[in-house]
């Protein structure tokens, strides 16, 4: 292992970790505040990627695709919350599992009916279609730096919102004690709607942002769903800070594993999760078990 290649791998790990953060922060918020285990979160990521693809194909501009994905996320999240999830908060967790499982199937079929089953690549915007050499014999696509930048900016905005706004205070309280939402004098329905919409928008944004790097294909959210749950669990349910550090940790471990110990790379994150949970049963930043 040489130092330059290690640096290059670290950059890979960082970028992957930040992407995981965008997905898992929404997951952890929705779980923390609404108590819903949303298995369809990976499908939301998939929807975001396809939105980017469809918009970019129609208009030729990925720059337009990103805001469209964010808006679609807010709208989709609000609709789902208002007309479906709202009626399931008081139901058992397992009913929510069943509901969101059904949603996975419906999202996938909807995607198949409307866009088809083929693998599509999404072109990187022309202005960014170049590479920056970072070490001898290995360059980094400029767009990847953009992804890193946007992810960091979104993370910062999310932290500000949660740490500084009144809604954020409620969200933090609710992540520790869900009963708190009712006690803090804001219409809980508004809190639920907002959190669900934001979480959904984050997932769609992640999908759209990553589409030029991952391409779009059926069931593309499946793998990320599981790994995002791992991130959420290691970070601690409901903790956005926890999700951030745990996403970076997983991104690094997964990347380094693939690079330097491919035989055990698949196992590494699961071993890590089992280890963390046996050591700290409520995750690294978790408040409740």
């Amino acid at each position, binding site marked *: 292992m040489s130092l330059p290649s290690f640096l290059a791998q670290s950059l890979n790990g960082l970028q992957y970790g930040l992407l995981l953060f965008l997905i898992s922060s929404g997951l952890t918020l929705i779980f923390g505040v609404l108590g819903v285990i949303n298995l369809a979160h990976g499908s939301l990521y998939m929807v975001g990627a396809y939105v980017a693809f469809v918009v970019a194909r129609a208009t030729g501009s990925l720059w337009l695709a990103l805001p469209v994905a964010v808006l679609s996320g807010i709208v989709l999240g609000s609709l789902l919350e208002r007309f479906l999830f709202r009626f399931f908060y008081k139901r058992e967790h397992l009913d929510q599992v069943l*509901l969101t499982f059904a949603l996975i*199937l*419906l999202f996938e079929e909807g995607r198949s009916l409307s866009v088809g089953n083929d693998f599509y690549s999404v072109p990187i915007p022309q202005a960014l279609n170049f590479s920056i050499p970072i070490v001898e014999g290995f360059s980094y696509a400029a767009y990847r730096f953009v992804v890193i930048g946007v992810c960091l900016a979104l993370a910062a905005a999310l932290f500000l919102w949660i740490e500084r706004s009144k809604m954020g205070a409620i969200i933090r309280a609710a992540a520790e004690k869900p009963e708190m939402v009712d006690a803090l004098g804001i219409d809980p329905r508004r809190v639920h709607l907002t959190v669900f919409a934001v979480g959904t928008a984050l997932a769609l944004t992640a999908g759209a942002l990553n589409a030029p790097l991952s391409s779009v294909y059926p069931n593309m959210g499946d793998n990320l769903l599981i790994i995002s749950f791992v991130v959420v669990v290691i970070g601690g349910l409901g903790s956005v800070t926890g999700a951030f550090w745990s996403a970076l940790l997983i991104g690094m471990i997964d990347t380094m594993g693939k690079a330097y110990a491919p035989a055990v790379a698949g*196992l590494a994150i*699961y071993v890590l999760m089992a280890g963390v949970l046996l050591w700290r049963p409520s995750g690294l930043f978790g408040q409740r078990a």
Partner: protein
Amino acid sequence: MTSDTRLLPHSRNGWLMLTAGAVALAIAPQFLPLYYVELGTSALIAAMLALSMQVLVGATGLVSLGHGAFYGLAAYTVYLVSPESAAQPMWLTLPLAMAVAGLAAFLVGLLSIRTSGFFFLMVTLAFGQMIFFIFHDTKLGGGTDGAYLGKPLISAFGATFDLPRRQRPLGIYYVALIQLMLMYAGLALLLKTLFGRALEGIKVNEHRMRAIGYDTYTIKLIAFTLAGSLAGAAGHMWALHRGFVNPEIVGWHQSAEALLMILLGGLGSLHGPILGALALTGLGEATQVLTEVSKAPYVPEKIAALLRLLGERKLLVEGLVILAVVIMLPRGLAGIGSKRLDKSGGGHA
């Protein structure tokens, strides 16, 4: 008296219906083409897996996503001891598969039962995926494409039960059916013991169980191990039925599917998972029927187009059915027809 568990039928009529169902399953193959018999065997195996999972989900309140791994592990155990060239007798492979699955469940349980709720779900998922990677990423079990094995011989007490080639699927069907019935009966007896009551107590309020002096860790570990070895019986049956193992049968999707069957069938009864398994298998077949129906001459073109669409879209139908069940039948399929009970479910007092 209130000593009967609520997972079993509460009335004589309930038991009668259950018996009628068992009889129907027993005689059905006599009237069905061979292919449907084999499909039936698949459904019975799925039912065994779901039933074994009900020990955790419905009886103890433990939701595991690693359960399918024990099922797959058992099938791979059969592969390892019963190669294609040298099939072994079932009296050897079945106990062995169950023992290996049970042992694995015991070890996984030792560590994971310390956690609870969603964390338990994730830890069991992690351990299940570790088992998956053993078979997916190493040469131990034939790698990603899977491998063939010698279907265990149906034999006991020195006598081998063999049928002419065409009849063999029938024999396998009955082996699966008998195992499913034994599993149901055994679990019914278990639930009627004091231990069964303790499981129910844990499901309802584990914290209180500890406070009144129950060693809930050991109780849950026993249930987890037992469920794992029963899943092993189901996995063994898959190997016996298919003669083929593939890493997919170890993956977490198996657990998710079994959970789906339980939820569809109903959490509140021991026979719910069996209903769920049969329904879900039937659903896959039903979509094919839709395609057939759409071709009938008297069907209006618009309806035919809709039927064709649904017939081609198995997952769409599955998704819509599940959505309908979760919205309209909060107690699962097993809840249909039984009197509406209040949330406390005290109909048997």
